[in-house]
C-alpha cells in the first residue's frame, strides 16, 4: 500500500508518504509560505523513497474542518496530482486524523474555528482507528456537549483558546487535554488506508473540502432585514 498525504488545515502543515504501513512525514514550517513549499516537499519525499506518483494507491488530504484557504490548497493539489497520475482521492476529516493522536478509546476533538467558534467531533476507536459518532459541527464553545456516557479524552487547539468558555460539565468529564496536538499528514495517510481497502476513493472532481461552516456571507435580503444597506 502506497499513499501520499497532505494536511494543511492549520498553520502547522505537513505531508507524508505511507509505504506498507510505515510513514515518512515532513512538516512545512512557516505559515505564510505553505503553498510555495508544498509541492517541492512532496516531490522530494517521493524522490527520496524512490516512488513514482503513478504507482501510488491514493492521494489523501486533510479535508477539514480548518482554515478554508488551507483546505482548498490541499484539495486543489490532491485533485491535480490525482488527475495527472490517474489516482483516486481519499478526503479525510482533519478532526478524525487528530483523534488518532488521542489517548484512550473515547476521544473528543475540538479545534479553534476562529470567529469565537469551535469545530468539534466525538470519536470512538474501532479496530484501533477513530470513527466519528456524528458529522463534525461548528458552534460557540458554550454549546459544546459530550455524548451521554463515560469519560473522554479531549484533544485540539480549542481547549487552550476557549478553556474559559467551555461548559464545566464538559471539562469535568474530559480529564487532562492534549491542547497542543495538531492534525498530521501521517495520520491522514493512515486513515486513508481503510478507504483504499474499502474501495471508497473518490474521483478528483468529486473530492471537496469539508468546510462545516457554510454560512459565510449575508444575502442582500438578510442585510436589509438587519437594517443594513443593499
Amino acid at each position: 500500500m502506497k499513499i501520499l498525504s497532505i494536511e494543511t488545515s492549520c498553520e502547522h502543515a505537513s505531508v507524508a508518504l505511507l509505504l506498507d504501513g510505515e510513514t515518512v512525514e515532513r512538516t512545512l514550517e512557516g505559515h505564510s509560505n505553505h503553498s510555495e513549499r508544498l509541492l517541492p516537499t512532496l516531490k522530494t519525499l517521493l524522490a527520496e523513497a524512490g516512488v513514482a506518483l503513478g504507482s501510488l494507491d491514493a492521494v489523501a488530504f486533510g479535508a477539514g474542518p480548518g482554515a478554508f484557504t488551507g483546505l482548498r490548497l490541499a484539495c486543489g493539489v490532491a485533485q491535480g496530482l490525482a488527475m495527472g497520475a490517474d489516482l483516486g482521492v481519499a478526503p479525510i476529516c482533519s478532526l478524525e486524523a487528530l483523534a488518532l493522536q488521542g489517548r484512550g478509546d473515547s476521544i473528543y476533538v475540538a479545534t479553534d474555528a476562529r470567529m469565537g467558534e469551535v469545530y468539534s467531533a466525538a470519536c470512538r476507536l474501532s479496530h484501533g482507528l477513530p470513527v466519528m459518532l456524528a458529522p463534525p459541527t461548528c458552534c460557540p464553545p458554550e454549546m459544546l456537549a459530550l455524548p451521554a456516557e463515560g469519560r473522554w479524552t479531549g484533544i485540539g487547539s480549542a481547549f487552550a483558546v476557549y478553556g474559559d468558555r467551555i461548559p464545566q460539565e464538559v471539562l469535568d468529564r474530559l480529564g487532562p487535554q492534549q491542547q497542543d496536538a495538531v492534525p498530521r499528514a501521517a495520520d491522514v495517510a493512515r486513515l486513508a488506508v481503510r478507504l483504499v481497502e474499502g474501495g471508497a476513493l473518490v474521483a478528483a472532481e468529486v473530492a471537496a473540502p469539508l468546510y462545516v461552516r457554510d454560512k459565510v456571507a449575508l444575502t442582500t435580503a438578510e442585510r436589509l432585514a438587519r437594517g443594513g444597506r443593499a
Partner: protein
Amino acid sequence: MRVLGIESSCDETGVAVFDVEAGLLGHCVHSQIDLHATYGGVVPELASRDHIRRLPALVRQVLAESGCSLAQIDAIAYTAGPGLAGALLVGASYAEALGMSLGVPVLPVHHLEGHLLSPLLSADPPEFPFVALLVSGGHTQLMQVTGVGEYVLLGESLDDAAGEAFDKTAKLIGLGYPGGPQLARLAERGHPGRFRLPRPMLKSGDLDFSFSGLKTAVLNVVSGPEWKPEDAADLAADFQDAAVDVLCAKALKALELTGLSRLVVAGGVGANRQLRQRLDVATRRKGWRVYYPEPELCTDNGAMIAFAGARRLAAGEVPGMACAVKVHPRWPLAALRAPGAA
C-alpha cells in the same frame, strides 16, 4: 504544442485547450453570476468554493470536447494574478499539481496579459504594435503594446474601474447584479441630455481616468427631490454617454500621442455596444482601426490564458520547474517582461 489554460481570478471558472498550429481546440466558462446575485456582489469565499467544486470537472469536459487527452497536453498556463487571492489559489494549486504530475511545464500568466492578447485569437487579428484599452469590472488601463510582454502603462483609473462604475450606477438606479450590462440595455431605451453628468478628467491632459465622481453625480440625482424611477432609462443613457465619452477621448488621445494606428479593446466593458460604435466611427475618420476579441472572449475565460501562455512558450520563455503555488493578487502589468528578456 498544446497548452491547457486555467482561469479562476474572480467569479468565472475558465478552461481551454490551445494548439499552436491548430488554434483553439475547445474552451468553456462557468459563470458564478447566479451564485453571487443574491449577495449583491462577488463574495470572495463563495467564489473560491465554487472554483474548486467546478475546476477538475470542467477540465475533463473541455479535454473531451477538444478531442484531447491529458497525455497530449504539453504545458499548463494558469492565471496567477491579479485577482482575488483565494480564487487565484484554487487555480494555482490545481495547475501546479497537475503539471508536476504530468511532468509538463507550468506557466503563471498575468490575467490582463490574457485580456490584452485575446484579440489576437480572432479571425482578423491585429499586428503589433498597438494601443490597448483594457476595460473591465476590475481594471481601466491604456497600454502601449509592442510585443508579448512589452507593455508600457499610458494611463489608468485613479479610483473605480469603468465596469465597476457601470455596476455601482446600476445598483443606484435599482437594477440587479451584475448591473453593468443591464444598465447598457436600459440606456438604449433612454434619451441622453436630461441630466448633466460630469466627464471626469476629460481635460486632464493625461491619459488617466476617474469614475467615482460620475457615480456620485448619479447618486445625487437619484437621491434628489425631483427623481422619478421612470426616468431611469434617461439617466442610464446619460451615464453611459459620460463614461463612453471619457473612454473614447482618452483612447484616441493615446493613439495620437503614441503615433500608433491600431487600438485593441479588451475586457468585459469592451462588449458595450455604444463604446464600440463610437470608437469605430472616430477611428475610421482618422484612418485608424479598432480590434476586439470575439464576443465570447470579452469576459474572463481560459482561452486567453492558454493563448498567452502558448505565445510566451513559443517565444522562448523557459518556465521554472519550482512547482511553487504562488499567486499575485496585486500585480502591475507593466512589471512583466518579454519572453527570454532578463
